[in-house]
């Protein structure tokens, strides 16, 4: 997360500092950090303190809260976390791989039907995914697959936007000459893709993976309607159920708050460590890694 990268244009370095710019930036940062600060503090409070003490004064019950969250129905919360890792991790990995193959084919081969396929995928980018959830549910119900891991994993594996990005990455990062050279050396098409093109596309693929990871982690409606068994829930659907219970048992709120904090920690860590991969030019599809 190097600050504005090292090439921060010498011209701008010479600029005078502007207090107004600093004030606005800090205001924006404060707005974005307020709920984060709140959840960190609230997770240290006991159920009684949550509603009685001043909002931003911390307490000492963090580990009690984690323990009672972990006790909830035999550690169901941690199962939700594992499920989330499975849905988002495996789903995004599969999606990035499928997108890489498709994007590579679209960028590096000429074949009949190519523009039909590409336009279909572009149209797919604009289809609001959430609208698909109900017919997807009905179709998967016919196949007897609802309320299984597959019901969430399979629809997550296709990402038209990922394919679009991969096509651009493959076109930009994999020179035709290199592929030609690999073929001269006797490499088959698959070999040229897996051993030559895939490593060259890696920074782009990390971005596609992260995009899809967040999309799956954020997709509430799909698991919400696909899954009935709460042992299959991702943590978002699980916590939303706990919040519902809190309406009748306010003691539950402490667990909800602690669970919310613990659930975002791994992702925040992932974000901060991979921040450079997020610098994506949506219009040009290029990664500024």
């Amino acid at each position, binding site marked *: 997360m190097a600050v504005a990268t090292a090439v921060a244009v010498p011209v701008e370095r010479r600029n005078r500092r502007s207090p107004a710019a600093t004030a606005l930036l800090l205001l924006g940062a404060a707005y974005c950090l307020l709920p984060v600060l709140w959840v960190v503090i609230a997770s240290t409070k006991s159920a009684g303190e949550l509603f009685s003490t001043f909002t931003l004064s911390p307490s000492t019950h963090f580990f009690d809260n984690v323990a009672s969250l972990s006790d909830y129905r035999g550690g169901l919360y941690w199962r939700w976390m594992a499920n989330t890792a499975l849905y988002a991790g495996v789903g995004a990995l599969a999606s990035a791989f499928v997108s890489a193959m*498709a994007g590579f084919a679209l960028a590096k081969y000429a074949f009949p039907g190519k523009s039909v396929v590409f336009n279909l995928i572009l149209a797919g980018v604009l289809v609001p*995914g959430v609208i698909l959830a109900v017919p997807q549910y009905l179709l998967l119900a016919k196949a007897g697959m609802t309320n299984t891991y597959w019901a969430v994993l399979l629809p997550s594996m296709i990402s038209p936007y990922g394919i679009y990005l991969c096509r651009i990455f493959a076109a930009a990062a994999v020179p035709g000459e290199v592929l*030609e050279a690999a073929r001269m050396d006797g490499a088959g098409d698959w070999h040229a893709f897996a051993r030559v093109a895939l490593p060259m596309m890696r920074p782009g693929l990390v971005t596609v993976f992260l995009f899809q990871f967040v999309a799956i982690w954020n997709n509430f409606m799909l698991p919400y309607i696909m899954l009935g068994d709460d042992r299959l829930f991702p943590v978002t659907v699980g916590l939303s159920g706990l919040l519902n219970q809190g309406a009748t048992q306010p003691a539950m709120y402490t667990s909800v708050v602690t669970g919310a904090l613990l659930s975002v920690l791994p992702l925040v860590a992932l974000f901060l460590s991979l921040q450079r991969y997020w610098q994506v030019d949506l219009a040009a599809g290029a990664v500024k890694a």
Partner: protein
Amino acid sequence: MTTLPAVTPAAERSAVTTAADRPGRGRRRSGTPYAFLAPALMLFTAFLGAPVVYAGYLSVRRVKISGLGLGRSSRVEQWAGLSNYTRVLTDSEFLPSVGRIALYGLIVVPLMLGGALLMALLIDGGRSRAGGFARTAIFLPYAVPAVIASLLWGFLYLPRISPIADVLNSAGLSAPNVFSSSWVLYAVANIAIWGGMGFNMIVLYTALRTIPGELSEAARIDGASDVQIALRIKIPVILPSLIMTFVFSLIATLQVFAEPMTLRPLANTISATWTPLMMVYRDAFIRNDIHAAAATSVVIAVATFALSFGFLKLVGSRAFRQED
């Protein structure tokens, strides 16, 4: 492997990126690209194509119950024409939910993108040491899914917890109830702005970084102020990125679901049909009326397409270019 004819239409050839890939240079033509595309196309068909077609089909069908409605044969599915659509469009709760979403979009999209653009320009302008910190802080909410974000803000909105209410109360003022019917729309909009600003900021910031420094330098020598440089040079250059973020925000707005669904246990002002997508959910899973749900889905999808294509056409954007 079969050998395909080496002649392709000019339009096809122009999409080929390098000379070495062109047919006629000794390159084998084969089924390989189709093999590479196969998994994507299978998944696309099963989880995008088929559901879209199926939703369309369901939207023109209905269940006819004959006799006493007992037994298997008493429920017959039949052609319904556009009756589901008229039923949905005349539903007394449909128009209010559309109006709500329109107002919501009018608040969220400009504020979220405006905030993102302002922050991106400030960080890119390099007039403050706080840029790096602000960039990370503002991006952070993107790691928080809508459900968790709604949950956090939901608690902050509760009068008994809200630090803002605490401050107002101790000053002797009465804090407004954020969950009251006149405030709740803004409360939900705030969550979306909070969650979406950082991502859009990063996209716009990335686009700003591609502008050569000499351009701003030359303008500055000509006496242009920072604001003029931003308005006359930087914003026009990153316009394609702004258009993309606008279209994606528009699509996201039409499918608001997670935030209001999460807030419902805390706010009784959010009805089961608060947004069109919540109406789809209610029809499909509470009323068991999948035909009405399908019709509403189709209406939302058509509206999304019309809005995004209409907008792209309007600005004549080549944001989604086929040629490289």
